[in-house]
């Protein structure tokens, strides 16, 4: 009996690992520019196998310069947001926490605003967004002070810092000229299609390292989720390990948000969906959240790319679908955390 359960569990994990890859391959075939599936395969093979055809296929540009970076960004950003959400929920012992609660989203938005409105092209919005997202997290930790590992204090600080950056953002918008304001509004709505390989060359490895580290910490999150006193009694250096988790979550989501703009709700909803399916044990929740977040964001972006001749900003799609879904989940499950 135990063997059968383990095998089912192992199967679930294998499926979860494969799903994003399968979706990636399928998504490569989707897009405004019709490329027949055979051509997709031959282009990929030509690129991978050395000594392919000498002439550059017109499809190669689309597949490798336009689609692939966008799809990879969707996978990595989705994983980053979901894993960070799951980790933060564990250490703050509050299922309603996600990267938003640390002030990251508004910090990044303010950074982008500063860049687009005041700094012009000298400082690209991605860099400024990242810097201010991290600054927001540091501000949250600073305000919480010594009690930084206590749940209520840090959530309160998060609310304060978010409110502060939101107000500063409004201030910048007030003084922005219409040219910059347009760019800013567009950035704030969130988009996966703007990133180039140059942007991703730095972002993807950072997210990869962060997500991997958080997945390695998955069992530790079970211990930390017992509460400070109990975890300490079990021999854990609570303050240091919580800071590590917060730091990793901040790093991954700030990197993602800096490039994609604000995409909400993935960090909150995906871990919940996963918990509803497999229970609360973080050994399962964290890696499955990564896979689920990656897959969900990829599918959402596929919808954005193909639903109409114009693109809905993906942040709006995740909110419009995510919020009602979340309400349904809340009502169905009774308790939020099962």
């Amino acid at each position, binding site marked *: 009996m135990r063997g059968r359960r383990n095998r089912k569990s192992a199967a679930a994990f294998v499926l979860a690992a494969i799903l994003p890859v399968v979706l990636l391959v399928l998504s490569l075939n989707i897009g405004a520019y019709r490329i027949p599936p055979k051509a997709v395969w031959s282009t990929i093979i030509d690129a991978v196998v050395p000594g392919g055809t000498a002439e550059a296929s017109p499809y190669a540009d689309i597949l490798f310069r336009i689609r692939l970076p966008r799809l990879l960004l969707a996978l990595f950003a989705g994983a980053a947001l979901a894993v960070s959400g799951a980790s933060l929920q564990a250490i703050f*012992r509050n299922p309603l926490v996600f990267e938003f609660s640390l002030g990251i989203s508004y910090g990044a938005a303010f950074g982008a605003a500063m860049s687009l409105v005041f700094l012009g092209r000298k400082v690209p919005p991605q860099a400024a967004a990242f810097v201010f997202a991290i600054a927001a997290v540091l501000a949250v930790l600073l305000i919480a002070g010594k009690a930084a590992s206590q749940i209520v204090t840090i959530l309160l600080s998060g609310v304060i810092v978010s409110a502060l950056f939101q107000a500063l953002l409004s201030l910048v918008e007030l003084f922005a000229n219409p040219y910059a304001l347009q760019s800013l509004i567009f950035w704030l709505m969130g988009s996966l299609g703007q990133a180039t390989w140059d942007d991703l060359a730095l972002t993807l490895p950072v997210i990869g390292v962060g997500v991997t580290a958080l997945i390695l910490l998955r*069992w530790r999150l079970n*211990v930390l989720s017992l509460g400070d006193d109990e975890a*300490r*009694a*079990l*021999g*854990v250096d609570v303050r240091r390990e919580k800071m590590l988790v917060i730091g990793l979550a901040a790093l991954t989501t700030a990197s993602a948000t800096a490039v994609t703009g604000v995409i909400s709700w993935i960090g909150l909803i995906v871990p919940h969906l996963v918990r509803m399916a497999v229970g609360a*044990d973080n050994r399962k929740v964290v890696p499955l959240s990564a896979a689920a977040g990656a897959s969900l964001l990829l599918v959402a972006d596929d919808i954005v790319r193909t639903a109409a001749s114009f693109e809905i900003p993906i942040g709006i799609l995740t909110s419009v679908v995510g919020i009602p879904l979340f309400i349904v989940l809340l009502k169905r499950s009774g308790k939020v955390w099962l």
Partner: protein
Amino acid sequence: MKIRVDRLAFSYEAFTLCVPSLTFADAKVTAVVGPNGAGKSTLLKCLAAVHPPPKGTVFVNGQDLSALPGKSRARLVGYVPQEPAFTFNYAVLGFVLTGRAAFIPALASPGRHDLEAAREALRFVGLDGFEERPFFELSSGERRLVLIARTLAQQSEILLLDEPTTFLDPRHESEIMELVRRLAVEKGKTVVVTLHALDMAVKYADEMVFLKGGAVVAAGPPLQVLDERLLRAVYDIDMGLVDVGGRRLIVR
């Protein structure tokens, strides 16, 4: 494992716990009793070194407990809180596994060894078939047993249990205390429990420590230390001691 308390002082708000000197017997069950607010839980928490006491030292086998790194301390002392704070509905085995934290590096996951220790702990407390049961679905008594199993999985020589019998019905009360005794007798653990129920203490403890107002009023084996004058002094009401059918009972 010998626990020795030296000049311990811990105060918060209006209350001060002050214990100039106290030793806990090795491989025995010691019951800490006293009225509400006497400082029982505080004493236990100081022993667990969850928060280092501002004054005084707790020595375990001659080592200053609060000077030890967390991992080493956890391998010496295990603490079972009265009510676990829980948010997530882990399965029983998963819950018990967290007790292995001191043996598993931060970036690692439990190995076969750890799983064995957890299962063994569950067997000892009699919750064999409960591995996959969700924690929220257990009764209070079962949850207490799971907590004890977790501390057992920690494989520490000293176990500190805070009010393990509170809110349990008489049958479960006895079950828990039987288990506590088995810990000392079969496994050679040094066990310190805080108790409200005096008769439980009298029946199951090898030693008793009476606290009142943050100070130790008396300490020693129950039959020696217990007398009506002590009870009146500690609890401020009249209580009598009666021997009935070979058992010593406390009567009000």
